[in-house]
């Protein structure tokens, strides 16, 4: 009697993406190369897309003329000051919401009401309150980063393992020790991943505020280029923004690696 023999069919695997080094870079290079080829060969009209090499040349020119820093420094200052205010206040309030029932009951509806407002709509109001200069921009970025930070923070505090808190209590740890040594470190992963979202929102608001009224800044630079239909400069500005986004996300990644070494 001869039975048919074969291997058991494999049906596991998949669903677990792993980091492939350099894949993102390859995609980027291929897209740029395609655009360069298209604009040179003519099947992409240069009213649609500027030639990547021209954008590069514009950037080099910006750098050499010193104008790059004239635009980047005020933008970065606004972003850093505004989001530092919004994020630190957001973490404080978020922790309070996580810890105290009355604060939670009182503030969560308020946060829910403020969160979905497109903050840029409030800029005219902020101009009246804080002046046309830096004040209104700081306030806008601060408010924009504030609400997502609160939501991420109190969610993170809620998710801290309560058995760890009970453990702290059972050893007679003081309230402040429990908060400092158990709640805050336990909430840190959630707070840091909230930071990514908050800072991205901060960058969006930064540009919007600068478009609505600023002499210098990346937003202002992009707006000028757009109104002149100068696509090279417009793309150069956009490129700076996306580098800014990548750099902040990388910085948070480094922070996570450093502070959350215990996790992986």
């Amino acid at each position, binding site marked *: 009697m001869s039975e048919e023999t074969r291997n058991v069919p494999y049906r596991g695997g998949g669903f677990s993406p792993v980091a492939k080094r350099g894949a993102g870079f390859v995609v980027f290079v291929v897209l740029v190369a395609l655009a360069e080829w298209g604009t040179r060969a003519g099947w992409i009209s240069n009213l649609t897309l500027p030639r990547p090499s021209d954008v590069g040349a514009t950037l080099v020119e910006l750098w050499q003329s010193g104008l790059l820093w004239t635009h980047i420094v005020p933008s970065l200052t606004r972003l850093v000051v505004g989001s530092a205010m919004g994020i630190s206040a957001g973490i404080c309030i978020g922790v309070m919401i996580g810890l105290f029932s009355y604060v939670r009951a009182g503030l969560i509806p308020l946060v829910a009401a403020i969160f979905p407002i497109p903050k840029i709509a409030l800029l005219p109001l902020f101009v009246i309150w804080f002046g046309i200069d830096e004040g209104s921009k700081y306030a806008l970025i601060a408010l924009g980063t504030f609400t997502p930070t609160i939501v991420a923070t109190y969610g993170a505090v809620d998710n801290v393992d309560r058995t*760890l808190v009970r453990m702290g209590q*059972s*050893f*007679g*740890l003081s309230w402040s*020790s429990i908060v400092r*040594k*158990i709640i805050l470190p336990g909430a840190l992963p959630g707070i840091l991943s909230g930071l990514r979202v908050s800072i991205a929102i901060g960058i969006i608001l930064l540009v919007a505020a600068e478009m609505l009224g600023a002499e210098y800044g990346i937003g202002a630079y992009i707006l000028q280029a757009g109104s002149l239909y100068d696509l090279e400069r417009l793309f150069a500005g956009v490129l700076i923004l996306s580098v800014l986004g990548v750099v902040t996300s990388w910085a948070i990644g480094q922070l996570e690696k450093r502070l959350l070494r*215990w*996790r992986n």
Partner: protein
Amino acid sequence: MDLTLNHVSHRYSDMPVVDDISLHIPAGEILCVIGPSGCGKSTLLRLIGGLEQPTSGEILQIGEPPVGCLNPLTYVFQDFALLPWRTVRANVSLVLEDHGIRRAERNRIIDDVLARTRLSDFGDALPKQLSGGMKQRVAIARALAVNPAVMLLDEPLSALDAQTRELLMEDLVGLWERQKFTGVYVTHNLAEAVRLGHRIAVLSRRPGRVRELIKIDIPLKDRHMAHPELEAIQTRLWDLMREEATAADRELQHV
């Protein structure tokens, strides 16, 4: 320091969980509490440890805790409850930091308890690097560090595999022989109860009452895995529990 429970009852909203339990736990003795799952063992332990207040009845500490005792009623949890971001040493250090002990003294205590739990080589490891048995030894080391008057152990070995459990039982006996701590040891494992308990309180299904209190006179260090007298006691415990466990198993969950 002795502990006494007088007619302790507890209910969650309308559901009675612990019903009229009276017990005396003399210093230097381990009391094992067994009962079907959901019968209120953990609740009873939380009441004894002061993490919850009984609906009625009283829980009394009699006498002073030993000198140098930082936390009279000290827990060992089933799921270890170690801070994942702290090393083994720092996890033990956590429970000493609030007591204003100088660093040198703190390090001496940590070295001592890690040596007693055979963890000296793992002081700088993070919890995630340790096996379940090692994690529980860290939790035991942490409990020993505060020099407790009474150790409250809530199914400390239930998350471990059978071999590790056997090793840790031997460790616990060794620790007790070295320093005769008072213990309330909750478990649903009868073998653990007969190995570690000077007395065993058998609880009924929910609401938990003491059905029977069994005293075992054999010294802990003479109790082996296949000791005939212990086997007889274990069989008797199972006879007591079988009916309760069957009934508890058929009950609908109140969630």
